């Protein structure tokens, strides 16, 4: 996708994206848990800076947003708990409980330092 992005950008164009990925340097069993417990879109093992460089981008910048990730993950759980009765009426008990289970599992992986969320930005050279 990053190579395609480079081709679609005009010279001087910019890409920016958030990505959820396993924390660098995890043991194999921790990495497996990060992929198992994280959201569907837990990213590839390759460092994104390297992927961006290989795709031909320059001026690569990255900012860690894991603290915000944890805050937002917790907020979804809390808000779904607050509005539990209304949500049961629209989603049904089974679906609601499934979502909350997944979110709690994911929050656990963030709290245990297994998942990070990073903002990357880069420029297509002129």
């Amino acid at each position: 996708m990053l190579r395609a992005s480079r081709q679609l950008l005009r010279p001087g164009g910019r890409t920016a994206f958030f990505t959820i990925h396993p924390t660098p340097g995890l043991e194999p069993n921790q990495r497996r848990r990060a992929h198992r417990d994280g959201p569907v879109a837990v990213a590839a093992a390759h460092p994104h800076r390297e992927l961006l460089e290989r795709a031909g981008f320059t001026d690569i910048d990255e900012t860690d947003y894991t603290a915000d990730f944890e805050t937002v993950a917790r907020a979804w759980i809390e808000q779904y708990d607050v509005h539990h009765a209304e949500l049961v009426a629209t989603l049904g008990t089974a679906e609601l409980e499934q979502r909350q289970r997944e979110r709690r599992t994911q929050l656990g992986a963030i709290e245990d330092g297994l998942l990070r969320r990073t903002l990357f930005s880069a420029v297509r050279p002129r």
Partner: protein
Amino acid sequence: MPTREEHDTHQRFTSRYREDRTETVLKIERAVIGADWGANGYTTVTQADRLGEVMHLGPGRRLLDLGAGRGWPGLYLAVSRGCRTVLSDVPVEGLAAALARGDAEGVADRVTAVRSSARALPFRTETFDAIVHTDVLC
């Protein structure tokens, strides 16, 4: 040919985008994300604004949002930054909701939607000034 994982993800999001946007759902989204554009992930309004700054978005600039869902954040950035936005995703339910919201926000002339997978994007080279995606596999 989509992979099994892509197929499952498509089914999952199609189902989500078909759910009613009740007042409760909007209230939750405003409390968690800070706005009610149909987000179900982790990108807050503050972070969407940061994306707009990082990509130097403004009037006359052309943005592609990959995996746009219901238009968060690409549609929001069209409204807040004045850029032109192409929303791209596989589930048409999300894109339809985004176009309806774009109409309501008065930016229908600057927002288009294209049903496509990020693996086979139907655009000419050197088309966009900026490309954004949030928590999409790459």
